[in-house]
């Protein structure tokens, strides 16, 4: 049986932040769905680990720090025309308001907001998108559907990228390019395993999820696959919650 409206067969898809977490799972799952993936991240060793887990052939890996303009330009020069772009790279730092500082705020906005904006902008300008391309932003429920203590910097960065996604969806629609975001709740990734929260905090937090668990990276990757595939051909400007019901 070969019927599969979610297939990514032959679709060339660039995925940022592919060395861990949601980006890594997305790269692997996309390759299993037939995509030719181009993965990028800053850490060579971990990016190689992702690359080794890709299925099929014709994939590409590019070490780059996309907050550096020269790296961004080099990436743009070395990629073919894209059927999909997953703007996924992201960071978090939990600090109560009175500890907000320029260094951390600029770093978070740089990686979570400015970089996906500039990557999208460069791809448009250099005509790197094929007809009917799909752009997916890894956003969050945080800052878009809910907020939590101490995460104001992260939440503003995600709210901003969500707003950009909708503006881009409107502006790029006439090119046939679709833009959407996935908005996960807590996912079991290195991003949340930095130890700021104790085991007890974690148990209490999981209680707030109607489905009584945190998400797995693959569960977000499947949402991204839907948005990359032709199954979502009439979907643009959507913020897709994948959150175990925590915002209900």
């Amino acid at each position, binding site marked *: 049986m070969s019927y599969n409206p979610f297939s990514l067969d032959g679709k060339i898809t660039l995925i940022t932040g592919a060395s861990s977490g949601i980006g890594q799972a997305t790269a692997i799952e996309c390759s299993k769905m037939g995509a030719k993936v181009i993965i990028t991240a800053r850490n060579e060793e971990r990016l190689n680990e992702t690359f080794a887990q890709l299925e099929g052939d014709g994939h590409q890996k590019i070490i780059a720090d996309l907050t550096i303009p020269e790296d961004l330009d080099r990436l743009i020069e070395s990629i073919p025309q894209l059927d999909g772009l997953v703007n996924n790279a992201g960071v978090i730092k*939990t*600090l*109560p308001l*009175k*500890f907000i*500082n320029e260094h951390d705020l600029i770093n978070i906005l740089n990686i979570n907001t400015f970089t996906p904006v500039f990557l999208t902008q460069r791809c448009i300008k250099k005509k790197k998108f094929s007809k009917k391309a799909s752009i997916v932003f890894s956003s969050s429920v945080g800052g878009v559907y809910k907020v939590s*203590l*101490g995460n104001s910097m992260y939440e503003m960065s995600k709210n901003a990228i969500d707003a950009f996604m909708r503006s881009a969806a409107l502006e790029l629609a006439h090119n046939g390019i679709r833009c959407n975001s996935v908005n996960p709740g807590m996912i079991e990734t290195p991003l949340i395993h930095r*130890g*700021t*929260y*104790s*085991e*007890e*905090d974690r148990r209490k937090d999981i209680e707030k999820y109607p489905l009584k668990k945190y998400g797995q990276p693959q569960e977000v990757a499947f949402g991204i696959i839907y948005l990359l595939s032709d199954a979502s051909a009439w979907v643009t400007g959507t913020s897709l919650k994948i959150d175990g019901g925590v915002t209900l």
Partner: protein
Amino acid sequence: MELQEFIEKFAAQFDETDASAFTPETEFKALDEWSSLTALSIISMVDEEYEVLLKGNDIVNAETIDDLYQIVKSKR
């Protein structure tokens, strides 16, 4: 780093609790004002002032302010 100075910076993360309530023996998680936000503030203060990254479990494992002071000291 000194214990007295640590206690003052610890106390500064509270708004309602009187400064006299903070001693090395204070069981800080029993204070009325203690909350998850205070815990985040303590972690942030220690990061900013002492360049030590406390874990949530360090807070769980400390009963008194002196316990936490010893943990911070050991991680410097």
